[in-house]
């Protein structure tokens, strides 16, 4: 085996070890964060919260599940979406479902 093949073998082995480490890290982190997840769930129950706080930019991206049909229009019927977070977070599926078939 040449030095080239050995080097590539080590490189690939290193990547495979890192790939394995991500799985191990995920499993360990999940176990370690079980208590804080429970605490967050209790806080949600106590405060009767409905959404995760992923963005505080606009009401419909702060409370994603409470967005309504009119959020796209905001202040007047031709207003363009001007909040960047709105282009990353999709509208809640229950809004789209409620539209039903139009044809």
């Amino acid at each position: 085996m040449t030095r080239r093949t050995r080097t590539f073998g080590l490189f690939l082995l290193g990547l495979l070890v890192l790939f394995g480490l991500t799985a191990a890290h995920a499993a360990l982190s999940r176990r370690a964060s079980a208590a804080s997840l429970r605490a967050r769930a209790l806080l949600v129950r106590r405060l009767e919260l409905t959404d995760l706080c992923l963005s505080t930019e606009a009401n419909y991206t702060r409370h994603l599940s409470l967005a309504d049909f009119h959020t796209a229009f905001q202040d007047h019927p031709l207003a363009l979406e001007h909040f960047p977070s709105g282009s990353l977070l999709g509208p809640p599926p229950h809004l789209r479902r409620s539209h039903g078939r139009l044809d």
Partner: protein
Amino acid sequence: MAAWIERQKNVLDFTLSSLLRRKGKNLALLAVYTLLVFLMASVMLATSAIRKEAAAVLREAPEMVVQRTIAGRQNPIPLAYLDQIRDIAGVISADARHWGYYYDPVVGANYTLLVPREDVPEPGTVTIGPGVSSARLALAGDTLEFKAASGEILELVVAGVLDGDSELVAADLVLVAAEDLRTIFGPADGLATDLVVRVANPRELSTIAEKIAGRLPDTRIILREEMLRTYDAVFSWRGGILALLLFGVVLAFVIISWDKASGLSQEERREIGILKAVGWETSDVILMKFWEGAVVSLSAFLLGFVLAYVHVFFFSARLFAPVLKGWAVLYPQFRLVPFIDASQITALFFLTVVPYAVATIIPSWRASVTDPDAVMKGIR
């Protein structure tokens, strides 16, 4: 077996030297390929972690939220609606939620002001979320000013800061007493922001929702199931930013793969011709091209995935942060709990590695079944 392994090693060695001869082109390919896997894996990991987090945390959310809409906007809901909901069979409880958004002109941040029904702060005090605490540099004992509806300044003492672990659900929360909320937002006697309903049997949720909608036609109802499903749609591919990001990378990848699939370069053809002339079989050439595809695609897949994992779970998906943060000042510094879904990794692997492997092998097979003399002369 030993001979087989030896053959593979030799072919791999030849493949590596062949790849290194076209170092620049192959490194560019590896970089684009890694970037593609990185982007796709980042979205995949962040989405599944947020979905898992939402499923674990929002299972304790209210079973049903009832809001009133007038002229397409959410409006305060009359407390009198509570009795009409409580009358419905199967409803355990119906209660009012008092909350709203407050723009803080001092730092330019948006807060969610909420009156909790348990452990209500004393009038004149607030409990703040970790995001508010860091935006205002406020800790227990400090004072925060709020502009009241009357135009006066209301000073509220910070009684406590919610635990830093709660950032993902409570970063922007300001818990206030009901009278302070009324002072800030203006009196709204007999009205609440929305109502929360708990039912005895979760299977009856949709029936009860229909009954509420029938009795109170100016309301809309959001079920807990719908809140949970909402987080399946985060980082939507239809969202403009992701589509644009991916479009560029996918296009680059398609161009490179197409270049490979549509035919080999003159140099590569000559190489195959010479190999066949010196005695290589067609199967040997295909094996070499298989190794070439495997070296590039495996390296890119593993490298892209590991980088995406580090990006999402160690750096809180920083690449998406500017978009999520948008124009807002207060941005939750959440750490997602890592979650790896084996089926998603498999799907990502087949979506990225297989097309490239096919694109590499097919033209090589076409070249290697042709007469070596003709290949070297560049006839076919």
